[in-house]
Structure formats: structure tokens, C-alpha cells
């Protein structure tokens, strides 16, 4: 049994940054995965990401992308070599250690996953309380396709659920507490 992490990264309260957690939620409700595959809403981890990824056979991260080189909604993929080539900068606060630095730490410790892929879409807005933008919503099917494609490449069995018992909602847009009499 190969251990594989599919992690959604981002802040659900900040517009398009909710993309990662939302995609993971969609995958959970629409598919069943073979044993060993873990899906997780990772939030906005800093160095804690190191021990979520270290020692896994493969890691697929879904995240929103910040770049001016492509329009919002463009789906981009970064493989292990590309992620490791981002040179870490001097950091002032504990949030600064980002994906690349956690991978470099795992590499130094000798337990970096064999396969690492970051899949995401370029974000349009990161305003508090805003839903996902049309551009990013339009990219979700393609992102899910890319995640499934990577799982297929890794030889992982995935089945579409015939009836989805739970609807994938954005919980952060709901009223959660139900008053009991």
C-alpha cells in the first residue's frame, strides 16, 4: 500500500484562496480512493507542512497560484524539480516557510516523497468573505482531471461514486450551528 497525500492548501475565508480545500472536498464527495490515499484540508500551513509530506510516497498539492504571467483561471502544474528550484528567502515570520522550503527540509532529512506535484489555478481575488471567482470555478474540472491523471500515472485505483451521499458545499458560506429546542 503506497501512502499518498492529496492536500488542499489555502484560506477558505479569502476568496480564490479557498480553491485547494474546496477541490479536496469535491474529490472526497465524488470519488472513492484505494487504501493509503489521504485527502486533507491543510489550511495555510507553514513549516508544519514538512511532516505532512515527509515520508509519503507521493504528494499532490492543490493550491491557488499567484502570478502575473497568466490570466486568472489558468491551470498550472509544478513538479518536484520546479518546486525545489525556488530558492528560499530570508524569513521574518513563521508563515514565510512555504511549499518549496518544506520540500527542501524533507530533502535534507532524506525523506522527500518520490513524486510531488502542485496543481492549481491562477487566482483573481483574495478578498475576505468573497466566493470563488468565475475564472477559478471554471478551472475546477480541469484541476480534478489533473489530480485524477496523476493518480492514474501513479497506478492508484479511483472510482466515481454512483450516488453522492453528501453534497460538496462550501461550509464556510453556511450557517453551521442548528438551534435545538
Amino acid at each position, binding site marked *: 500500500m503506497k501512502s499518498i497525500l492529496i492536500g488542499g*492548501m*489555502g484560506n477558505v475565508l479569502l476568496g480564490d484562496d479557498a480553491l485547494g480545500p474546496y477541490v479536496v472536498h469535491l474529490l472526497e464527495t465524488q470519488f472513492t480512493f484505494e487504501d493509503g490515499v489521504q485527502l486533507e484540508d491543510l489550511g*495555510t500551513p507553514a513549516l508544519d507542512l514538512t511532516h505532512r509530506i515527509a515520508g509519503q510516497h507521493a504528494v499532490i498539492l492543490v493550491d491557488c497560484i499567484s502570478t502575473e504571467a497568466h490570466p486568472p483561471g489558468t491551470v498550472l502544474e509544478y513538479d518536484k524539480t520546479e518546486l525545489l528550484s525556488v530558492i528560499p528567502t530570508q524569513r521574518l515570520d513563521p508563515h514565510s*516557510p*512555504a511549499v518549496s522550503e518544506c520540500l527542501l*527540509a524533507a530533502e535534507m532529512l532524506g525523506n522527500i516523497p518520490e513524486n510531488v506535484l502542485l496543481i492549481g489555478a491562477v487566482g483573481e481575488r483574495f478578498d475576505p468573505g468573497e466566493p470563488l471567482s468565475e475564472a477559478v470555478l471554471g478551472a475546477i474540472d480541469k484541476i480534478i482531471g489533473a489530480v485524477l491523471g496523476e493518480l492514474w500515472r501513479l497506478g492508484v485505483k479511483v472510482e466515481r461514486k454512483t450516488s453522492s451521499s453528501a453534497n460538496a458545499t462550501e461550509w464556510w458560506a453556511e450557517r453551521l450551528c442548528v438551534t435545538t429546542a
Partner: protein
Amino acid sequence: MAKRITIDPITRIEGHLRIDVEVDNNVVSDAWASCTMWRGIEKILRGRDPRDAWLFTQRFCGVCTTVHAMASVRSVEDALKLEVPLNAQYIRNLILIAHALHDHIVHFYQLSALDWVDVLQIPKADPAAASRLAESLSPWTRNSKNELKAAQDRVKAVAASGQLGIFANGYWGHPAMKLSPEVNLLAFTHYVQALEYQRKALQVVGILGSKTPHIQNLTVGGVANAIDLDSQSALGMDKLEMIRSLLAEVVEFVQQVYFVDVCAVAAMYPDWFKIGSGVKNYLAVPDLPLDSRATEFDLPGGYIRNADLAGVKGFNTAADPVFRQSVTEDVVHAYYQGEKPLHPWNGETEPAFTGWQAEQKYSWVKAPRFNGEPMQVGPLAQVLIGYSQGHPLTKKYTNMAIEKVAAIGGVQATPAALHSTLGRHAARAIRACMLAELAQKHWQLLVDNISKGDYSVYNAPVLPSHEVQGVGTHEAPRGTLSHWVVIKDEKIKNYQAVVPSTWNASPRDQAGAHGPYEASLLHTPLARPEEPLEVLRTVHSFDPCMACACHAFDPAGRKIATAKIL
């Protein structure tokens, strides 16, 4: 001629700390701390059910999710005058302690140790000599020659690759680096081990909280952990035993490694007991309640003005009347509308961005003030306030630290030397030792209480229709955190979070008084202004943390420090 240096590490799209210092003849003559992104997340909470608030507030931040959840449920409980069952207090306390131990270990090793440790000296070290040195300092069993050599080989492998990988961001070979190759190797070995032990602390949070980040077991009025000693799916003896053994390992690491390493660094950089003091007003709130009404605590709180330790004033409750009345936020130098300082219950968050202007507005962080004065918060504040009040546990570990530093380096430190960059590191290690001891105490309190047959974990909240106000406090790893809520018609009318880093990273106020980061940098000598390692040492000693909760991946790495002649 004065030079201005900007340290602005753009690793994410937004929401990080920026420091500007003016340097005259290689000494810092002025400083500005600013946060580069407005969040205004509190606005999302207006109109929501106050019982839901904690699930949203723990998404403010990706590092301290737990602390914002805790302060939020406490604020609503305070507004509703709701007591919390003993089991719930102990379970919450264990989560808070485990999270803080994790956070303090990571802060020292992963986030600031390499300001003092020169990685490129490590290949020159003799592992056998380093091992002998380690044995003279601590009974820790993982200081063997072989373990040290394995760590040295990791550094050699990274250095041999020609690229520095994880170490590409340091000021190696800087003249302010003073440790011998052996001490550098020892500290680095513990840097690697720290990754293992901080994870064990997080596992405790995960077991009790069901998940981390973003614990799931809180509820206004208690916790949602079902207690059943015979059930594997509830909180039973097997899970409690797992927590006990994880905590035992973390406690050992904190007391035999982290505490000793901080004392050793302090002994070898004694000048740094004289650098980096800044604002000497201190504030801490009491935490780790011992009864359901939260009237007794294991960590003391209070405040100190102008370094007057003898004049310390204590707080009796988590939301002491003096604390409730004395907090305001000033926005004269922050990018918000408004003139007068406002109390958080009346707080406004209307943006007025102008761009960075040294004499005008320059930060998204408001300037919180206590009776109109800036306050330093964090472990140093808590240790000084506890020590001055004669709190036995604080005195025990503070005195131990003073003795250890003297034994290693012959440096006679006093509690007054704690007003410094090193003092903040020492205080954090002292606090970690206190928390390590308290972790075991609160585990025992929980087990004893359950053994009496008390399985209660929750008191149901009743939301009144009239307007009520509450404040929830928590002495978080970075200091005093307070959430302020106004509830009307069963909905949130106003919500403000005054976070530790707002106190410490605050900009100047209407009187022109510097915030703690800014004040601490004044008069710091810099060996090489273009490589401002000394500025990083002092800023890192606060354990800075902006409300940086956005996580878009930025594929471009960027430069960090720029210098220009004024």
C-alpha cells in the same frame, strides 16, 4: 550619511511583515514595522451565530489556528456568563499547552536558531569533541558521536551539491556569528531532532482536537470529546495513555535540549543581553484555568510599567476589569479611517490605504494601547510578571536559567538582563519548561477528575435577545490574545481580535511612541548594514507572526533586503 534598509521578504502574494531601519554610522537610528496586507476578516463574522464564530476565527491564521478558536469560544462564554465543566477546562488546557510547546520548539530551532548558528562551520566540527561537550551540559541521550556525525553528514551532502538548498537563505560567515564548529554542530543536530519532537506535541493536539490544523472538538460551553474509559472511539484510557507518553517525550526534549541550548547560546553571545530591549511596559493575561468559573490559574497575568518590576499589578481573572477597560486601538499611523483611539467593542475597520509614508500612515496593523501606552507581550512579559509576583514555577525556571548561563559561560545574568533580545529567547525557554511541567499536571488533573466519575464536558449556551458583550483571552505562544464580541438578537453585532503581534508589531501612535519591534531596534549596531543579521535577530526574538493567512503559491523567489542612501 544615513542609509535606509528595507527588509521585505516577498514569499507570498500578501500579508507579511516589513521592517525599515535607518542606519547612521552602522547603528540603527530609527525603525518602522509594518504589515503589508489588510485582512478585515472580522467583518465576515457580523450577522453570524456566535456559536459558529470559532470555526471561522481559527482560519485567520495557518500557524495558530487553535489559539483563535479558543479565544473565540471564551469570548462568547464571557458574554453569556457561561461556566465550563472541569473536564473541558483540562482538555482545553492540554491542547493549549501542547500547541504552545510545539510552537516554542519550532520558533527556536526552525525559525531563529540559524540567526546564531553558522551552518557552514558545521563540516569543520569534530563530532567526538561535540559529543563530549554535550554530555557535560545535559543528560540527553541523543548526543552521541554517531548521531552528531549523521547530522554533520546531512550538512556536508547539501554543501557538496553546490547548492545550499534549505540553507540558501542564511548570512553564513557573517562577522556576528561567534559559535565554535562543535557548538554549531550540536545546535544543528537538535534542529533536526526538534522536527521530530514538535510533531509529537502536535499529535497531542490532534488526538484531543480530532484534527490539526483546525481542531474540531470545541464548542461554546465546553468541548465535544465524549469521555468513556472503556471505549476506543471516545476519550478513554488508551488515548489518555498515548497522550501521556507523547507528552513525556516532549517534556524531556524541552527540559534537556531546548532549555540547555538557549542557555548555551546566551552564554556565548552575552552582548545580546544588552541589545534589543525597547518598550519596557509588559502585559500578560492569566491562563490555564483550574476551576469551572475560571478564577484560579496556573499561569499568572498582570502588567508592568517602565521596567518597574516591584510595581507589578496582577490580574485576578482572565478578563480582568482593568484589562477590559484599558485596551484601545489607535490608527493614526495605520491605513484605517478614524481619529480617536477606540475600544475594541466599538472598534471600526474601515480601510484608508495611502501607501508607505514614514511620517504618516505606513502599516495595516493598528496600534493597540493599554491605558494609552504601548505594551510588549509574549513569554518575556509573562515571565517578568510572574517572577515579580513571586510565582513559584516562574521563579524556579528563571533561577535555573540564570544558574545554567553562569555555569556555561561564566556570565552572571540578572532578571533585569531579560529586557533584551536574548531575554526574549530565554523567557520563551523558561515558559516552555513551565508548560512542560504543567502538561503533566493537567493530564493528571483530567485523569483524576474522570476517575471520580465526572464525565461532564459541556454546558449548553442560551443566547439572550438583549445586547451582551464579552472578551475571551488566551496567553498564546506570542503573547496576549483577546477576542471581543458584541452579541445582539442572537447574532454577532461586532467582533474584533486584538492579536499578540498587533501589540508587538504596532506602528507609532498619536503621541509618536514607537511600537515594541520598532523601539527594540533602536541603537542596534550592525557589522554589515547590507546584511542586517542583527536586525533579524531582534525581530525574530519576538517570534513575529503577521495575520498572514493567505496561501497562494508564488513561483518566483525574490530578494529580501534593499539598502538605499537617504
